[in-house]
């Protein structure tokens, strides 16, 4: 798993247990990193929300709370962007098969909005198989340009 380029600053590079407590701790670390990188309050909210959804997916749907499986989090960034890579050790999934949460027949479904919200809040989202197994998700947020 390679995230950081030479010119980038690394904020976080850590493994987490597959627990909801890890989700809270990772969210907090990511928020601190984004704050240190100079993102405004609105973007901080979006980054925090997308990262939390992604961590929940890794812990709950990827690793299924399995104590033997870990979630790897890397956060790095440059002057005007932050990159967050979250990798689980689960079975993987086919993103193309996820139902559209905005379709009329899915509006009242209890779940299935996580990836949609991640995409809504981040500038780039890349979901791909991890090696040797699992899923890794790369999230990129660029700083808003003030008018």
């Amino acid at each position, binding site marked *: 798993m390679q995230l950081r380029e030479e010119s980038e600053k690394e904020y976080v590079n850590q493994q987490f247990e597959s627990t909801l407590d890890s989700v809270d701790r990772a969210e907090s670390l990511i928020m601190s990193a984004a704050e240190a990188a100079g993102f405004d309050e609105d973007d901080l909210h979006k980054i925090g929300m997308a990262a939390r959804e992604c961590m929940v997916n890794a812990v709950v749907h990827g690793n299924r709370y399995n104590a033997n499986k870990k979630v790897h989090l890397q956060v790095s960034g440059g002057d005007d962007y932050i990159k967050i890579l979250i990798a689980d050790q689960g079975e993987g999934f086919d993103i193309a098969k996820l139902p559209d*949460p905005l379709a009329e027949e899915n509006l009242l479904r209890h779940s299935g909005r996580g990836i949609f919200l991640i995409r809504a809040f981040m500038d780039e989202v890349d979901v791909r198989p991890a090696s040797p197994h699992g899923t890794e998700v790369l999230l990129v947020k660029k700083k808003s340009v003030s008018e």
Partner: protein
Amino acid sequence: MSVKLNSRQVGDVTVLDLAGRITLGEGSSTMRDALKEVLAQGHNKILLNLSEVSYIDSSGIGELVSAFTTVTNQGGQLKLNGLNKRVKDLLQITKLYTVFEVFDEESTAMRSYK
């Protein structure tokens, strides 16, 4: 901080005042349990006051949807009051703003119950 919940009766409407974060885990289950209790007591006109809710994740949205369908299926009404801008935005991008009846003032919400 997770979610805190208080229940009060205003006429025949049960108001659930929620505060904090409605997220996967404790936050979602607190709301689900409270709603179950209210319905078991025979109350089915429910207003969720979210004015002190700072944050809702996709699991929290799922709980709101479940609450709505549960109450509606039992012939009741579940409405929302006092959403902050971010929660409103969340309901808008998930197209749920048109599913729920959403109010800014509790008095207006109260008058809307049949």
